[in-house]
């Protein structure tokens, strides 16, 4: 199972969490406004270090 990532819709601003893998083959759409402009949030360096 892919790790969950926070996504932000760059049209309506809605934020949600979904599974995400960089090499995935998934067409994404905002669950609220159906826009395809959804941006995965990059893990912050401090968070990544914490996880390690």
């Amino acid at each position, binding site marked *: 199972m892919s790790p969950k990532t926070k996504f932000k819709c*760059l*049209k309506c601003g809605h934020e949600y969490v979904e599974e995400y893998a960089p090499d995935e*083959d*998934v*067409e994404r759409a905002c669950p609220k*406004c159906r*826009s*395809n*402009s959804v*941006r*995965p949030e*990059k893990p912050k360096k401090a968070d990544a270090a914490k996880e390690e």
Partner: protein
Amino acid sequence: MMDVGRHPRIELMAYSEVEDVGGYVGNFKVKVRKKARYVREEDCTSCAECARVCPVVVPDEFQVGLSSRKAVYLPFPQAVPAAYIIDMDACLGTNPIACGKCEEVCEKVCIDYDMKDEIVELEVGVVVVATGMEVYDPTELDEYCYTRYDNVITSMEFERLICAGGATEGHFVRPSDHEVPQRIAFIQCVGSRNNAGDKGNRYCSNICCMNTVKDTLLLRDHYPDCECTVFYMDIRAFGKGFEDLYMRSREEGVKYIRGLPGEIRQDPETRNLFLTAENTLTGEVAEREFDMVVLSVGVIPRHDSPLIKKLLSLSTTGDGFFMEAHPKLKPVDTPTRGVYICGCAESPKDVKDSVTQASAAAARAMTLLNAGEVTAEAITAAIDPALCTGCGLCAKVCPFNAIVVDKDRKTAWVVSAMCMGCGNCGATCNFGAVTMGHFTDDQYYAQIDALLEENAEDKVFTFACNWCSYAGADNAGISRLQYPASPRVVRTMCSARVTEDFVLYAFMKGAPVVLVSGCHFADCHYIDANRQTVKRVYRLWDKLEKLGIRPERLQLEWISAADGQKFARVMREIEEMRKQVTAEEIEHAKKVLAEEWEKKLAREAKRKKKAGADEPKDEVQVS
């Protein structure tokens, strides 16, 4: 099949697998593994003496496990060539020979335990993919108790039971007690049209309704006293003569109940089955008793479709079936030139439709072969060897494997016959070495300049792919849908052609909002090129943020050719976003990007100067 086997100009390679496909239209090189049969097919007379003495008994795949075969066997009665095969996984062993009975009785001395797989290399002009489909396994659907109750069978098992050449020689009997069932239920859409759960498939399997209608008529013909009941969602009898057949089935006394059973219960003593279902036409919920239940199972793509997809650079729909180049105008072509598809490899269909499509594919293949030569597209990519560093990034992203990289000479070249002109390589190259015919970088910059020359702040700059989004805009237009006048649309062959520089240049020229739009993932006309679009847009969002430009000003949308409504809606929404972009924001973007642009131009000039000073590389173009 006999005709194919006998045809002087058709070489039939049964029991063989395609291992590799190279080359391009008119010049494919196919590597085929001809598996060892351990029986010389040219000498075998199918006398069956070997099978008679073989001591090994295994389930017969052709009879879906309802009967058995021997380790040496004929795959099915009408097999071409009519020669036996030894199943080496089941055979008692040849090294050392533990049994050898088949060899002892074979008068023609056909058995050859030392036979090896053979690799055959073929040179062909075109490839037709007719790999068929597989049948859905309903074991995962707990409510139907398949494999838990003996008398719940699939439509494929029904076929083998009712067939004269089947496991019971056409005597239709219950698996539990070998008695002829009197009350038979058929359940439709098993594994098909399932929109709710995660089991089964969403699509209609196309053939199951008429298969059941035919089965009920067969039963009524063979066993006039039997009662048939069909549980269905809708009966889809849309083909020529199908409605008549359906009506005949009803007139013959077959009961049709609109509603699928929620559960099946078995009487442990009689092994009879009780189905609870609601008739959605009357609202009546009733439990009915049957002797046997037939699950009308749907069809699924072959398990090895992904391998064929990879070998031939094909694309598939979300369902996993191979995708045609165009649903109306090129229904048997694929995105790869010279490769055609037909039958259930493309989508579930019946025999008549499969034959029609196979004839079409054969005709398309003949047209190409008879032409003698292939004309390359004018929009293909070309690589400037002086600028190319041989990094290979372009080859990595090419969906058609049309780019050959020579690491030693630090260069790459495009095989024009394979290139379809998506422009993904052009957008990926960091060294400006790729030129797209008729869609050059300079042409795009000129279009951006022209469209944003006046009142740039009032415009929504839109890149639309040729096949879907641009057609979607057309659709919105011809449907007279209302949307703001702000969009300025530039056509690209694929959304993957849109380079990061095009987007940044548009912002530098004062565009308040830029939209990149392309085909939905499943519809990409360049197999999977638009996945690169996503990656590029992700990078651009990061870059814009770093430069202090709101990433929201770059939008991404997948709009299909039929999505005129979506195009209009997106344009209305983006127009609202455009109004919120302030003059200060536009000026800031223009300023910081102009600085970036200067740096970029300086880098390019330096690179070109260096390339000019280097020893010239030979220009290699293969077409």
